[in-house]
């Protein structure tokens, strides 16, 4: 019941975010319509970060409690994080091509996202190479912790190299128009709800997989 409610709210919010992005948010001078991808790019980046944060927390919880439930949550969240990091790289590249004339530059946020993507890709490769369930969960948790601690360090190292990525608008007063602010807020809310919907589905699937595996073993 709660799950269905979340799906309906999420769908409504996604539709609202789409309408706001394309119909309400005012155009920015000199950028045409391409900048509108920002209203997807930023919420996606937020969800990716949030997903890895939750993987970090659930990984620690798993190591402390040793209950497979927490591994289900940690790995499901990492999957969502990986998908959303892929989307960050794709949406960012599309925008960069139109704004900077190049798909990619080795700038702070781009490079950090790419390193992040590679770390969590390795997380799943590692899990795939371990047959024993308990050990897989344990190794996954270790990478979930070490990988997340690495994020600020990677960002710090790259931040000392000059950058072209636009600064975070929200914190520097770049967003002043209420239409821009509301579009972004609705976008972030919509994507956060989407995260919890996907998480719920993925964890439920993991429980089902677990039941099937146990039945097969009998």
């Amino acid at each position, binding site marked *: 019941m709660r799950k269905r409610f979340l799906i309906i709210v999420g769908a409504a919010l996604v539709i609202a975010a789409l309408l706001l992005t394309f119909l309400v948010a005012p155009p920015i001078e000199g950028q045409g319509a391409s900048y509108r991808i920002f209203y997807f790019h930023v919420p996606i980046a937020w969800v990716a970060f949030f997903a890895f944060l939750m993987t970090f927390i659930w990984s620690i919880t798993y*190591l402390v409690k040793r209950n497979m439930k927490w591994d289900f949550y940690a790995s499901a969240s990492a999957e969502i994080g990986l998908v959303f990091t892929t989307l960050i790289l794709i949406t960012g590249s599309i925008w960069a091509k139109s704004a900077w004339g190049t798909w990619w530059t080795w700038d702070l946020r781009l490079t950090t996202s790419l390193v992040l993507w590679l770390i969590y890709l*390795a997380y799943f*490769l590692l899990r795939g190479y371990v047959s024993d369930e308990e050990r897989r969960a*344990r190794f996954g948790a*270790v990478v979930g912790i*070490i990988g997340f601690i690495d994020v600020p*360090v990677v960002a*710090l*190292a790259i931040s000392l190299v000059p950058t072209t990525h636009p600064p975070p608008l929200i914190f520097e007063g770049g967003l002043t128009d209420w239409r821009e602010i509301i579009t972004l807020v609705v976008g972030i809310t919509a994507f956060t709800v989407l995260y919890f919907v996907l998480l719920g589905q993925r964890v439920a699937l993991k429980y089902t997989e677990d039941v099937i595996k146990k039945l097969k073993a009998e």
Partner: protein
Amino acid sequence: MKFWRKVFAIVRKDIVSEFRSRELMIAVLVFALLSVLIFNFAFDTSGGEAVKAAPGIIWVTFAFAGTLGLNRAFITERESGCMEALLMSPIDRESIFVGKAAGSLIFMLPVEILVLFAIQVLFNVPAITWQIILVTLLTTIGFTAVGTLFAAMAVNTRARELVLPILFLPVISPLIIAAVKATGLALTGGSWGDMLQWLEIIIGFDVVFITASYLVFDFVVEE
């Protein structure tokens, strides 16, 4: 004090077995020199260009050769059944971690110094300086600490040595970035002050990841 005695025992065991088998260091050194040879053809290293290419050559070589060595440190341990013996012995896991990491550090540093020497001779760049030696030492400390943690995981997977570089290289990327930049500054006559911000990152990485690896190592080796 007891802790360091156990660590020392593990390091001594590794050194003795390395002296008898001469398995690891020579192979890693030869591999490193071969990489340097290939880089010489991949990049323009004539005249003033060598200084630009050298930091990259040095650190890619160290990273790959180091990965090779770290893998080996645990694969022999596992093949000979020594890891089980270590885990069964009344030694805490933390001593095993520090001992294995220190062992890898002791094996890696001489190889790195020899490679730096080779680069100085072959590319005519000032690679043997206190600045570069310090950068190498500090970077290798963090490198072997994280590497030891991941290598202990890698040997317990189906893909063995394949896992380590995939897992390890993205995580140590900030360390390598800082080392490359600091080495570049040192090669072009930068002062200690110029290098400071990169040294801070290297030291920061070392502190954070030695602590983190030390804390989670227990979970990696438990059976």
